[in-house]
C-alpha cells in the first residue's frame, strides 16, 4: 500500500466539480423565475437583478467561499459547516428575492426558484451529505441530524419565510387537501407494507424450511415485480371492478376498480419480493451450528425459529422492509392515476394544468418522505447489525 499523502494540499475531485458548478451557477444561471400570474410565461432573473447589489454580492461571496472550502479544505467538519451555511444563505436569498419581487398585497405574481438556485441548493446539499458521510456518524447521530433538519425546515415554513414563493402559494390554495393526501400517501405506503410483512414473513420462513418451494415462489414474485406499475393497476381494475359490481359487501368495504383498493393490492404484490427474498436469505445465513445446538438442547421448532433464527436474520429482514418502504413511497405517487390519492394527486393535476409548482408540491414531499424513511430504517439496521454476528 502506498502511504496517502497529507490531505491538506490535495484538491478534492468531487469538491472541485461541485464547487465549480456552484460558482458557475451563481455567475451565469438565473436565480429565480418571475411570472406576472400563474399561467403567464416566466422570465429568468439573475441574483444581481433581484437583490440589492450589496446583498447579492454578499450572497455570491459566500457561495464562492463555500466552493473554495469544498475544493481545498480537508476537514469534513469544516466542509459540513460551510455547506450548511451555504444552503441557509441561498434559501434566505431566495426568500428575500421572492419578497422583493412581490408587490405588497399582490396574490397573482409568481416567483419560483430558477435553475441557478436549484443547482446551488442541490450542489450544496450534495456537499453536506458527502461531508456527513465522511464523518461516519453512528445511527443515533444520523437520526438526530435528520430530526434537526426537519425541525429547522418546519420552523422556516411555520414562520412564513417562504410564503411568497410560488410553491407555497400552491400550498396555501391546497392546504386542506394537502394534509388529507399526505395522510393517504403514508397510509397507502405503510398499509401495503404491513400486509406484505404479515404475508411475506411467514412465506419467507416457509421457503426457508421447504427449499423446493423457494425457487418457484421467488420466480413468481420476480415476475410480478417486472410488471410496470401502471399496467398492474390496469390489470387489477378489471377483476376488482367486476367484484364490486357483483358483490355488494365488497362495494361496502370500499372495493372498486379504481381508488385505494387496486393501489394497495398492487403495492402489496410489489412488496412481497423484497420481504420474502430477504427473509429467506437472512434465515439461510444463520449459523447451522447454532441451530443444531439449539435443537440439541431441547428448544422446540417454534422456539428455534423465534429465539434463534429470526433474531439472527432480523437485520437482513429489516433491510428488506426498508427497500419496500422507500419503493412504496415512490410508487404510491402513481396510484393517484387510478384515484388512489396521495401526493401523486398534485403531480398529475400539475401536469394537467402545466403548473410546474403544483407538480413540485407533490414531488418534493414524496422525496423528503422517502429519504427520511431510508435514513431512519438504515439506522435501525445498523443498530441491529451491531448486535454481534
Amino acid at each position, binding site marked *: 500500500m502506498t502511504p496517502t499523502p497529507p490531505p491538506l494540499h490535495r484538491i478534492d475531485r468531487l469538491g472541485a466539480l461541485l464547487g465549480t458548478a456552484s460558482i458557475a451557477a451563481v455567475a451565469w444561471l438565473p436565480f429565480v423565475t418571475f411570472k406576472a400570474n400563474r399561467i403567464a410565461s416566466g422570465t429568468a432573473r439573475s441574483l444581481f437583478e433581484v437583490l440589492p447589489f450589496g446583498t447579492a454580492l454578499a450572497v455570491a461571496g459566500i457561495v464562492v467561499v463555500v466552493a473554495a472550502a469544498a475544493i481545498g479544505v480537508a476537514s469534513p467538519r469544516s466542509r459540513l459547516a460551510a455547506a450548511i451555511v451555504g444552503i441557509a444563505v441561498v434559501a434566505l436569498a431566495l426568500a428575500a428575492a421572492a419578497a422583493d419581487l412581490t408587490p405588497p398585497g399582490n396574490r397573482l405574481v409568481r416567483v419560483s426558484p430558477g435553475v441557478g438556485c436549484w443547482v446551488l441548493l442541490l450542489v450544496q446539499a450534495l456537499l453536506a451529505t458527502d461531508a456527513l458521510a465522511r464523518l461516519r456518524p453512528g445511527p443515533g447521530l444520523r437520526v438526530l441530524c435528520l430530526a434537526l433538519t426537519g425541525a429547522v425546515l418546519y420552523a422556516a415554513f411555520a414562520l412564513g419565510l417562504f410564503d411568497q414563493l410560488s410553491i407555497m402559494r400552491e400550498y396555501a390554495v391546497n392546504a386542506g387537501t394537502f394534509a388529507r393526501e399526505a395522510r393517504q400517501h403514508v397510509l397507502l405506503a405503510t398499509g401495503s407494507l404491513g400486509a406484505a410483512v404479515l404475508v411475506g414473513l411467514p412465506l419467507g420462513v416457509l421457503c426457508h424450511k421447504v427449499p423446493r418451494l423457494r425457487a418457484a415462489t421467488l420466480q413468481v414474485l420476480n415476475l410480478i415485480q417486472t410488471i410496470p406499475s401502471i399496467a398492474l393497476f390496469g390489470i387489477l381494475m378489471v377483476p376488482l371492478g367486476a367484484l364490486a359490481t357483483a358483490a355488494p359487501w365488497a362495494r361496502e368495504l370500499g372495493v372498486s376498480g379504481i381508488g385505494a383498493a387496486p393501489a394497495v393490492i398492487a403495492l402489496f404484490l410489489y412488496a412481497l419480493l423484497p420481504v420474502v427474498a430477504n427473509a429467506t436469505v437472512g434465515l439461510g445465513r444463520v449459523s447451522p*451450528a447454532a441451530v443444531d*445446538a*439449539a435443537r440439541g*438442547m*431441547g428448544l422446540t421448532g417454534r422456539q428455534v425459529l423465534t429465539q*434463534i433464527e429470526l433474531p439472527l436474520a432480523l437485520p437482513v429482514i429489516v433491510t428488506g422492509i426498508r427497500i419496500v418502504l422507500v419503493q412504496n413511497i415512490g410508487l404510491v405517487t402513481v396510484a393517484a392515476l387510478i384515484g388512489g390519492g396521495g401526493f401523486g394527486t398534485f403531480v398529475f393535476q400539475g401536469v394537467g394544468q402545466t403548473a410546474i409548482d403544483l407538480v413540485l408540491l407533490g414531488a418534493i414531499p414524496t422525496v423528503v418522505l422517502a429519504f427520511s424513511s431510508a435514513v431512519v430504517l438504515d439506522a435501525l439496521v445498523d443498530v441491529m447489525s451491531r448486535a*454481534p*454476528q
Partner: protein
Amino acid sequence: MIQLESLTKQYGPTTVVDGVTLAIASGSITVIVGTSGSGKSTLLRMINRLIEPSGGRVLIDGHDTSATPVHLLRRKIGYAIQGHGLFPHRTVGENIATVPRLLGWSAARIQARVDELLRIFQLEPAEFAAKFPHQLSGGQQQRVGVARALAAEPAVLLMDEPFGALDPIIRGKAQQDLLDIQRRFGTTVVLVTHDMDEAFHLGDHVAVMSQGRLLQYDPPALLLTRPADPFVSRLTGTADRSLKLLSLTTAGEAAEPGVGEGPSVPAAASLREVLSDLVWSGATAATVMRSDGTPAGRLTLAGILARGRAG
C-alpha cells in the same frame, strides 16, 4: 446406563448405521472412533433423537427414549458440538442459561449455576458472563459450549468432536477439564473424535465404527491387545502399539512391592513416561513416589517391558 439395541439408520437404500448394539455404563466415558463417514455422528445424534432411528431403540436407565417428547428428552441430555454452536446474539451467561431457562429454573438458581460453571471452566463470571461469544478466544468459546451443555446437570453428555478445532495445548487442557468435571458430576459421556490419542486418553471404553457397523467396543487396552478386526489395528496403528499400551497404565498401578534404587518417578506418570526416563538415565529400575512424598514401591525395566506385550 444407556443401551443401544440394534440401532439402525437408513437414508433411502443406503444404511448409514447398521444394527449397533451396545451398553454404556453410567458414569463412564465412551469414545466413538472411525473413519470419516462411518456413521459416528449419526449414531450419537440418534441418542438424543436429533436423528430419528429407522430401526432399533435407545434406552436410558431402562426407559425407551421414543416414549418422551423429543424436546423434553433433549433438555435432560447435554449436547456439545465442534465449533461450539454458541448463539451469537446472546451473552455467555445467557448462552449457558439456555436449558435452565427452558426448564423454568428460578432466576437466582440460574445465576448461581452460571457463575459456578464459569468458575469451574476458569472464566471469571464478572469478566465473562456479559461478553458475547465473538469476544472470546476459540478455546474460551469451546469451554462455554461445554459449560452450556452441562448447565442443567444432565446425567448424560453427548459430544461431537468437541475439541476438534483447538490447538494441541488448549486441547490437552480441555480434555483434562472434561475428565475432572466428569469425575466431579459422575456424568455419562459419549464423545465422538477422530483423534486416537484423545480416544485412548479419555475413553473408559472405545467404540470403533466402520461403514455403519460397530466393529469393537472394549476398553482401550483390549483394542491394542485383542483387535477384533484388522481394521481396528489399522486404526489404532501397529508401529507404536506397545508404547500406547504402556501409556494406559500409571506407575502407581504397576508398582511392585519393595524399595527400588534408581530415579524416582511420580505415581501418576504413565509407564511410557517411566520407560522413557529409564532409557534416558540408563537405570534398570525406578522408585515410585506418591504425591505426598512417600514411596509406593518400585518398577523394573523388565517388569515394564512385560506390560507392553500383548496377552
